[in-house]
């Protein structure tokens, strides 16, 4: 087995989650999802199309920021990524702040961005948060930027599909409204997951280990994918994937 960085494992994990999609989009500051989407594309004969906000080369949008949301509402985006300062067991996402007394909470984050809309519209929303601890993965979020589940009758073609952390992969069961532990990353124990996860989740009797990226995958990541992602994320490409660019 080849040596690989944690980021490379995550890129490979996420790429597998994107199999079968036609169009994957992501917001700003998403180098790992961006690399994963490009990897999925290269491993699946050219699909999905990858749209990276802020990357002229990977953005066909020419009608302003609204075009992303319009596309999502029309079902023209199959997968998207969200993160969260807090994520809870019902897949609620908090991007706003920690503590009571909104808006004067103890800690304030950036804000909800497009989450309150895209989470409803995009069929495969992948929650991505490398930190895996009880600070992030909580029983109940302090502010629901975007809810994981909705009442019957609410128009919701989209929603949570998976949660990828630095320790494990969960899939979300929409019927049960719960996460199910799908695999733990190499070297991580179940006890570690239980100890560091603030919400209850389902798991199989035998939890598989997340497959490590093989040599061919790593070569792709460190070669063409790295050079391509460097346009949008030169720092990431340099520091993590070892890509040096002229700029």
């Amino acid at each position, binding site marked *: 087995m080849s040596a690989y960085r944690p980021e490379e494992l995550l890129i490979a994990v996420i790429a597998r989650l994107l199999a079968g999609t036609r169009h994957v989009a992501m917001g*700003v*500051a998403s180098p790992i999802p961006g690399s994963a989407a490009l990897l999925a594309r290269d491993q699946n004969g050219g699909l999905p199309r990858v749209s990276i906000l*802020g990357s002229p080369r990977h953005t066909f949008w*020419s*009608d*302003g*920021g*609204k075009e992303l*949301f319009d596309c999502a*509402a029309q079902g023209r985006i199959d997968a998207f990524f969200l993160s969260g300062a807090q994520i809870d067991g019902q897949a609620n996402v908090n*991007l*706003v*702040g920690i503590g009571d007394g*909104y*808006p*004067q*909470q*103890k*800690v*304030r*984050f*950036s*804000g*909800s*961005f*497009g*989450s*309150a*809309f*895209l*989470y*409803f*519209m995009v069929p495969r929303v992948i929650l991505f948060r490398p930190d895996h601890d009880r600070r992030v993965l909580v029983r109940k979020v302090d*502010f*629901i*930027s*975007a*809810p994981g*589940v*909705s*009442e019957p*009758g*609410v*128009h919701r073609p989209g929603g949570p599909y998976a949660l990828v952390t630095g320790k494990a992969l969960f899939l979300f069961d929409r019927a049960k409204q719960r996460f199910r532990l799908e695999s733990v990353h190499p070297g991580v124990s179940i006890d570690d997951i239980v100890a560091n996860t603030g919400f209850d989740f389902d798991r199989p009797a035998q939890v598989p280990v997340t497959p490590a990226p093989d040599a061919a995958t790593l070569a792709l990541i460190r070669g063409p994918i790295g050079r391509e992602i460097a346009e949008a994320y030169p*720092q990431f490409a340099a520091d993590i994937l070892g890509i040096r660019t002229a*700029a």
Partner: protein
Amino acid sequence: MSVISLDELVARIADGALLGLPSDRRGVAMAATRALLRRRPRGLRLYNMPTGGMQTDLLIGAGAVAEIETSGVSLGEFGAAPRFARAVTSGSVVIRDATCPAIHAQLQAAEKGVPFLPIRGLIGSDVLTHRADWRVIDNPMADAGDPLVLLPAVTPDVALFHVALADRDGNVWVGRERDLVTLAHASRTTLATAEKIIDGSLYDDERLAAGALSNFYVSAVAEAKHGAWPLAQPGLYEDDADAIAAYASAAKSDEGFAGWLAEHVFASRQAAQ
């Protein structure tokens, strides 16, 4: 008559104005923002389209802002927006949290002269819970049981942004940055800075005309070379990463921010512009 100085331009932004601003790297008028701060404005209400960054953090930190409607404020890869977070948690600025497509839709409602636009999603989000001005109705076009949200039209008093080109008639070239078109259409008036003022009309070249915004919407333009600095300007230049990182670091403390303001805004006109 349409082309005026930077100081004349920002003098047209009244205290208390609802100010429509584009996101970082989409044409932020940073030189104009520094000029604006030098006249020590008060009570501005910011409308981020749809997010804010260094400009918003700076205006808030300088005490110029009473209210902000935004989908998020951050310095992106340079970290959190410290002055924004401080102001929200301390309650010194009123915040209306929104979500990006709602920000767009509220402007599109104003653009179309309709009282509201409908939007999907949002139901169950605390963003909606805290917005008394957003209303959930049952879709009147469906048979029954299809709740959706109506968003009111929002009309900024002034849209302020930076573009690559303008002509002497005050037409500006926004290129692919169509958000600037929506923002200008929705706003009562638009003030723009331009990297370069060209002779002749933007409408003389069909290729440029496709990305032009008419002086019908733009009441004044000022020339500002490197007018988005230290932020990137689409198609022209990248972020000045060192300068933004220095801001991000300084803005973490009151003293650091005051020092940054003194040096980059108030120290000298040359340095500031």
